[in-house]
């Protein structure tokens, strides 16, 4: 069934709107998560609680550069397919995936090396729940764009028809941007 040829053009296809609204719901989810963090934080006399070390700024900083940086190749992947180059799209998406995997590795190292857990206290619960929630989204994002790579070999996309690539790229940028907010709240705000 080659319905692929009939895909509507333009950034404002229904699929794009659907993805934008899904992202809006997800933004609300992360907003709620960060608001919950701040709610409990401002009720606590000290933050983090006594005996719990601050999250590692250097590691967190490197992770941030990797993940936010992965939006740049994703931007060029989208531009590539808009100009009809499936190859450029494939290379750029692969680069983004590599950067995101680097981000996940640092997160995994942090999970393993932190002296507290989600069972320790509410601080630990918040820290690990928000990081895990975001980490799962990064994995989801990788799966989405990897699937776009595979679909590109079946000829699903060309310079005219690539709304799914645009939707996937939009989701990718959302995951990166939301990380910036998480970094500010979880890594920077306790130091104020």
């Amino acid at each position: 069934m080659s319905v692929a040829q009939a895909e509507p053009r333009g950034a404002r296809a229904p699929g794009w709107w659907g993805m934008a609204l899904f992202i809006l719901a997800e933004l609300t989810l992360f907003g709620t998560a960060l608001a919950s963090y701040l709610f409990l934080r401002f009720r606590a006399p000290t933050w983090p609680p006594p005996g719990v070390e601050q999250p590692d700024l250097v590691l967190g900083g490197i992770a941030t550069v990797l993940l936010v940086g992965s939006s740049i190749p994703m931007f060029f992947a989208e531009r590539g397919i808009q100009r009809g180059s499936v190859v450029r799209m494939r290379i750029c998406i692969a680069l983004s995936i590599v950067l995101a995997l680097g981000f996940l590795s640092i997160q995994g190292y942090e999970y393993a090396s932190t002296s507290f857990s989600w069972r320790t206290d509410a601080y630990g619960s918040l820290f690990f729940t928000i990081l895990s929630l975001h980490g799962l989204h990064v994995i989801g994002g990788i799966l989405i764009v990897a699937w776009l790579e595979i679909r590109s070999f079946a000829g699903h996309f060309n310079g005219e028809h690539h709304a799914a690539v645009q939707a996937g790229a939009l989701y990718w940028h959302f995951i990166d941007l939301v990380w910036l907010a998480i970094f500010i709240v979880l890594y920077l705000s306790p130091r104020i």
Partner: protein
Amino acid sequence: MATATEERLEEIWGEEPGPVSWFTTGDHKRIGKRYIVTALIFFFLGGVEAALMRWQLAQPGATHLTPEQYDELFSMHGTTMIFLFITPLFTGLANYLVPLMIGTRDMAFPRLNAFSYWIFLGAGIFLYAGFVVGAAPNGGWFAYPPLTGPIFDPGINMDIWSLGLIFLSISTTAGAINLIVTILKLRAPGMSLARMPLYVWAMFVTAWMMVLAMPPLTYANVLLQLDRNLGTHFFDPTAGGDPLLWQHLFWLFGHPDVYIIFLPAVGIVSTVIPTFARRPIVGYPYVALATVLTGIIAFGVWVHHMFATGLPQLGLTFFAAASMIITIPSGVQVFAWLATIIRGRRPVFTTPFLFAVGFIVVFVIGGVTGVMFASVPFDQGVTDSYFIVAHFHYVLFGGAVFPLFAGLHYWFPKITGRTYSETLGRWSFWLIFVGFNLTFFPMHIMGLLGMPRRIYTYSPDLGVDGLNLLSTIGAAIVFVGAVLVAINATKSLVSGSRASANPWGAATLEWATTSPPPHYGFASIPIVNGRDPLWEQPQLGSDLTLTDGREILGTTITDAEPEDPLPMPGGSVLPLVTALGFAAVFVSLLLGSVPAALLSTLITVALIGAWTWDLGGVPG
């Protein structure tokens, strides 16, 4: 009879009746009907739960039910009515009506639409499985920790509840996104935002509210699950958590949800009243604006559910003010309806019109007690008493179920192609109206006399015996009225006379096509010049027939200027199978099996992949 165009469209859009298309259909009309029937079954179950509670409360000191059974019944009654009956029913009605009202052939994403229904059905069965395994949810419909935490409610009762609601939120969110994109992109040429029917406006705002209100509920339930099963401390004050966090998150969803329930209802009333007053609604822009304003202010009033929790006075004052302000847009709508009735020709007192007017009466009573709660000291005095129960039944049963019955009668001829019996309809209205007031009005007095809610019995010393008996008798009358509606519907389906395309002489586009509409909705896409197309335009048809393939017309989001035709996917079994995958994930989580959860997650992800692959580039 059928023209060549109609034959061609039937060829493209038609479905073989039978078991295969039953599982694969993406037709918004079939899915809408399914939603409606399923939600009505849950309405019946929630009604039975209410009846059992009224039986127990008919006399003081009764022992028909144990306290534990009573806890399960009121928890499931609230959960059912809010989550499994009224919201899905309005979603289903919108599913059926919105594409017809905006003059298109289907929802923007037909497969996502089928998926939303299957998830709703799965989550409903999931929540009711508690009764089967003897562990129904028992912590009330707003599930406050620490009562619902791991220490005081250790069984799987509340795990079923919180996992079930997370499961259901997938359906609600997907359905809402589908509705928004449908309304934004698929309106008939000429139907600018300023010409959209008020029902479509109401559903548009409701869908936005769903998208924004479900995540706090979902997140709160995730935290509750983690606290219960993985040893986190979100709601545990001994380790830096706070039970108030739950209340904030829950009501950040919960109060908008009140309007998610109420706005579709006012959309119905704003549709029914002009039809029977036989004139356009008075103050269309104000009613549309009031709908939007209600949707926005609804996100700023949640703390009025928490006036008795010891929050700072200044904060309470802000939320008290917001709670009073939100009555203004509701007031604007009430006056618009009254003015429409007064300025119209002599109204036709049909069943839908009676239910709409009955709604205005009981809603104003519920609105008045609502304003009383906005005053903090009064609220602190009556909180957790039957006064609250009386108030929210006036606004939920009165404010949503009355309009719902108005809508179900109003669109019955369109959906089924049969007319219902007006005599039976009027009987059911009066039984429900009288029974409703008899059930819930005495609860105001019981509450002021000090009867607390959610307690399985009461002492004869409280002096509320007679009021309780009255309330139980009222509930029985409501039940008879509701059964009469069911009898009327069944009888009319079998032997009602055939309905014409527009039996009420209504103005909106769904009445331009036959009753029931064909699979393709309209033979030609209507071109709209005003707010009441069927009253203003005797010739609605156009030469836009889109007979090249399974296509619908995309239009611009504000002015509805025609764009390109959009290809639509046909039926598929993938939405059902993917929904089953999600069901497996949630059952695994309930059983606490990590391998099963991982495996079912992988399968579900693969199914979503297959779904997008199958679509190629078509949205769906």
